[in-house]
């Protein structure tokens, strides 16, 4: 059974067809790429999986359960984490607080406990704190725990966002253009980081990315879409030589 199965997904925004009859199956442990020219519908795809939009047609199944129509925070609680193209960290909270708040699905105490500071509250807050620090340490970010994100360089902020996504212990991680805005040194670090978390945390990764070095190095399989529908599906080598893909990105010879 595939971890994530998308069948004949179609998304219409009024008259605009953003996603058209899209299907894919992600097996556990894969690292798959989603590429395509600008405006192809990639982020819309992620928004559909995360639960921000309800698809006009089609189904999305995660671990065998249909997730279309669930609210985003419910889907996250099931084990789907996601990062954004523009880093969406909470800038007035410290890095540590950013990680802790992501534990909302699993706080273990109610508001009454919080107000009365019961044993249950203290125990769970300690657990949340410890687990957050563990994630930060695993990604080498522990020394920035009490910094606020705007004080950190962009590359580190991206890392913090990934750490935050990992803190919900996801089975599926959706990365939306993680290399966007990074310089070449940071991109190399990012590639190593993604390879590391893919192995160490044993998660399935689906990645949107424009930078081909990242995509070709990391992904075992690529799905290419344009105007909302699949135009190619295969290994990086196959895709590089696929004439449809080349046409979509570079245009064809006829002028």
């Amino acid at each position, binding site marked *: 059974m595939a971890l994530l199965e998308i069948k004949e997904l179609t998304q219409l925004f009024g008259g605009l067809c953003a996603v058209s009859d899209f299907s894919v199956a992600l097996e556990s442990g894969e690292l798959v790429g989603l590429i395509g020219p600008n405006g192809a519908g990639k982020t819309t795809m992620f928004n559909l999986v995360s639960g921000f939009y309800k698809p006009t047609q089609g189904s999305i199944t995660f671990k065998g359960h249909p997730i279309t129509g669930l*609210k985003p925070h419910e889907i996250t609680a099931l084990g789907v984490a996601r990062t954004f193209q523009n880093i969406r960290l909470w800038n007035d909270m410290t890095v540590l607080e950013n990680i802790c708040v992501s534990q909302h699905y699993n706080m273990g105490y109610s508001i009454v406990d919080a107000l009365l500071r019961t044993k249950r509250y203290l125990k769970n807050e300690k657990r949340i704190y410890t687990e957050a620090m563990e994630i930060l340490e695993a990604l080498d970010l522990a020394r920035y725990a009490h910094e606020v994100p705007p004080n950190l360089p962009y590359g580190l902020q991206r890392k913090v966002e990934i750490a935050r996504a990992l803190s919900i212990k996801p089975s599926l991680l959706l990365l939306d253009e993680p290399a966007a805005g990074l310089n070449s040194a940071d991109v190399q670090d990012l590639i190593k980081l993604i390879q590391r978390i893919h192995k160490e945390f044993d998660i399935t990764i689906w990645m949107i990315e424009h930078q081909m070095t990242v995509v070709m190095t990391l992904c075992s399989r690529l799905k290419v879409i344009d105007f909302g529908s699949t135009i190619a599906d295969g290994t990086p080598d196959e895709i590089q030589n696929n004439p449809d893909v080349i046409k979509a990105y570079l245009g064809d010879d006829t002028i």
Partner: protein
Amino acid sequence: MQKYSVPLLVTILLIVLVALSQSGAMDLYVQSIILFMGINIILSSSLNLVNGYMGEFACGHAAFMAVGAYVSSTLNVWLFAQDKFFGPPLLPPELALYFFPVVLLAGGIAAAFAGILIAIPSFKTRGDYLAIITIAANYIVTSTIINMDSIGGARGFMGMKKVLFSMSDTIDLPWILIWVVISTVMTIWLIRRFVSSTYGKGISAISQDEVAAEIMSVNTNKMKLIAFMLSSGLAGIAGGLYAHILGYINPGSFGILKSTECLVMVYLGGMGSLSGSVISAILFTLLLEMLRFVIPWIDTIMHWSYLLPDSYHLSQVWKWVLIPLILILLMQFRPEGIMGNRELSDIFPRLKKYYSFK
């Protein structure tokens, strides 16, 4: 020992205030100022929860005050006092003393449920639209009360003083002072605990980036509901206390002007700063009282320097020109208010030693 310094301080404060009041050393006017300070602290910190921490724009706080005021007043009068409409007291007036916190809480709970009225629209709207909805809710509450003749309608409702007298007849203590102090301390304590927990931080997350919060497993609708209910519930308790201090309430005192006062206090103190709300509430209460004296002085001076014609005198209405003006100037020159979004412990780090919850 240091850990208990705050509860100790509070208890000492309470004992001192009660002693001063009982012995007659503190005159009623000063006492009323302290009472109103307490009410304003509750109002401003509860509104700060929604407008400051959650970054929403709720402009109808007085509506919940009204709900709490009327519910607790009518309950108390119905149960413990003689009234034209409700008839003789249902329970012996001696019991008023023990039931007072229960009735106050009932008013707060009623107000919390009224808070659902504006929490639900907030799921889908933000900013300007929420402002409209909350102002409309404010008018709806006051209009509804005006149309209810059984509780006085536009003429107002009274009888709370009788209940207070029954209370002090049973045990001779300044009960309203005690309950105001206790409620104020409890409010600050509750809000502080809420926003410093991971649970409460979800609210700040919503205000900073709601999409990210939703994605990171924060149930945004539930959090908004909780924040609005907590905020309105506390306002309801403030309303109940306000009603018993004055002994008389009417819908006119819970209109847009009262809501504006609450807004001024929140933005003056600083959005998202609990210590800011407390400080600004105290300053604001003092300002309002000072204006009672300052305006006649200015009037005298302006007449003396021939700036004003003899026939015209500055009335207290100028207070209501000054208060909005303060907020306008605040928005122009220091929109973050006195404290910004910092707490006293951020400015004076040594204070952190004295309280255990952070």
